[in-house]
């Protein structure tokens, strides 16, 4: 009886172990470029503490933010523009909590994107050191919420296969591909290229490229990134939001002609987090081809992005009997 039950237990254990092993397999290369996050920000546990009890003497305070690059940009070949990003903290009375510097630049060196070699992506810490001054604490309990804001530039790249068919209306041929729509998985960036809708005419092929803000933050015009920092003294305007720059749209060696750009050259506008751009390739670029073929459509967009994180803290005055 005992032997039988022992065997069952051993078998169950083996099953559990085997299940665990399958789940712990390493990420494939495909995994490394998925996801809808770029840089992320989080308060390091205990920095700041959830509560401070102060007496008459000054108390040090440390706010440490952990920055992680959970997206795919930049890879080894990319120009790293993350250094234009900045992180700043606010939300508290600066008479009571005095921080040496309320704003810090992002150190691009450590924030490389996820890749097959570095599936976790790069990370860095930003520390804000300061002092709590109890003499300005006129209440027994002061409960501010510390707001950390990270604004950074980012890029989304996608290379979906599209069908180039020089004779789109010829049904008599056997073709390796047909003009149609393609849905894309996420690209390891907060702004995702979600789908490509293809349409062909006798003279050109048109691509409707759909874009969506899949992240949890706000899209900021690339040139307005510095307005994120309140110490710069500039305020955001409504027109500084939901703007994306189309950096590249090409099929093979042929650049696509894209539009409309109501806000200027190359700027795509998002509406309720979604937008699109129409690009086309003229028949001259593929008229020498005899039959349909697939080729990558190389797309690259650039934008600013803003995310925030909050942490409530409590500062209490210690009451003594003296």
């Amino acid at each position: 009886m005992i032997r039988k039950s022992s065997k069952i237990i051993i078998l169950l254990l083996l099953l559990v172990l085997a299940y665990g092993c399958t789940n712990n397999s390493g990420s494939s290369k495909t995994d490394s470029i998925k996801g809808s996050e770029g840089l992320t920000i989080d308060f390091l546990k205990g920095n700041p503490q959830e509560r401070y009890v102060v007496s008459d003497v000054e108390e040090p305070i440390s706010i440490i933010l952990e920055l992680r690059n959970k997206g795919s940009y930049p890879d080894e070949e990319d120009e790293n523009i993350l250094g234009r990003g900045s992180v700043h903290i606010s939300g508290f009375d600066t008479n009571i909590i005095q921080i040496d510097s309320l704003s810090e630049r992002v150190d691009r060196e450590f924030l490389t994107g996820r890749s097959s070699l570095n599936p976790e992506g790069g990370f860095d810490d930003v520390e804000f050191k300061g002092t709590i001054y109890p003499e300005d604490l006129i209440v027994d309990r002061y409960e501010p919420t510390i707001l950390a804001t990270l604004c950074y530039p980012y890029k989304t790249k996608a290379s979906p296969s599209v069908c180039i068919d020089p004779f789109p209306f010829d049904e008599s041929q056997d073709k390796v591909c047909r003009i149609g729509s393609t849905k894309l998985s996420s690209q390891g960036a907060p702004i995702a290229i979600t789908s490509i809708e293809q349409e062909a005419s006798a003279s050109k092929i048109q691509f409707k490229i759909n874009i969506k803000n899949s992240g949890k933050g706000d899209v900021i015009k690339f040139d307005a990134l510095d307005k994120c920092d309140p110490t710069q003294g500039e305020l955001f305007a409504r027109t500084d939001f939901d703007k994306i720059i189309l950096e590249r749209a090409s099929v093979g060696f042929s650049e696509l002609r894209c539009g409309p750009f109501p806000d200027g050259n190359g700027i795509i506008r998002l509406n309720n987090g979604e937008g699109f751009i129409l690009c086309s390739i003229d028949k001259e670029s593929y008229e020498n081809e005899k039959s349909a073929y697939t080729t990558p459509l190389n797309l690259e967009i650039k934008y600013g992005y803003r995310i925030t994180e909050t942490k409530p803290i409590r500062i209490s005055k210690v009451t003594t009997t003296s």
Partner: protein
Amino acid sequence: MKHLHKPKLSLTYLLGLVIILSGCTGGSSNKSVTDADINKGTEGIIMQLEKNAPPEKVFEDTTFPIIVSLHNKGTFDVKEESKGYISIGTEKNYVELGEEKELMEFEALGKSIFDQNGELFFLDVTAETKKVGAQSELRASTIFITACYPYKTTLGTSTCVDPDIFQSDKRKKACEVKDLVTNNGQGAPVAITKIETRMVPSDEGGENFARAQFVIHIENKGNGEVLTNEREKIKNACTSNPLGFKDFNKIRITAKLSNEELDCSIDETTEATVTLRDKKTIARCTSLDSIQRNVDAYTAPLKIELDYGYTHTISKDITIEKILKY
């Protein structure tokens, strides 16, 4: 038989473990001394006559005790420069107080984190009845006890200051300007029931500056009357000295935002005093310093203090009986 015992034992052990574990979790409390919230309640000094002191029936030409309990259930310390008065009123033709004075001073410490109940003390006075008269066998009389004391309501809270009046800045904000409703009082008979927070354009510095303004709703939630906080007037309320109607329902208000004094006066010449009507009033306090509109929203400490005098009276009817010989 042995096999039957095993499950019983396991069950007993399991139950034991559950009891021990539940005991462990319930035994400790995370609340520290500093966490104690004593600034609540709408009571100040509570005055009560002890049972049978005075008794309902007393005989003529005898002495009887009057014992009053005074319990400071609020947060303000009635002491030293802010001591209170208590007076005992009797019909002098029938009841005379002994050696004790009719007007006495008292001190009573309020609640603190070290004494979360506040100070309680008893006032023991001996009174003496007089003859009820040849034509009567008994006489009804009333004993009044009046307390008059200065008191203070203090509210300390955190409030949101957002100089972006029209919410035109699309920057993310750490806090939102909203009203604060405080139904539980602040440990004083006069309570701040609501604070409306608003940001208004500054008349200095142009459109790029704003000021914080607070509309403070005040209510007398106690059973007594509010007096001006002048020491002499408070004393007069416990004596036969006259008080004018302007001496009642007056509250002096002071407020600070981030350790900066707010302006709560109606105009530059008057002191920041408000008058209760039907036990209620509002005060408007505005920051003197302008805040630049491009400053991020932040949470700032706000402290409001109300200074006033307070008086209330309790009474008890007694019957003085003649000692009949036959």
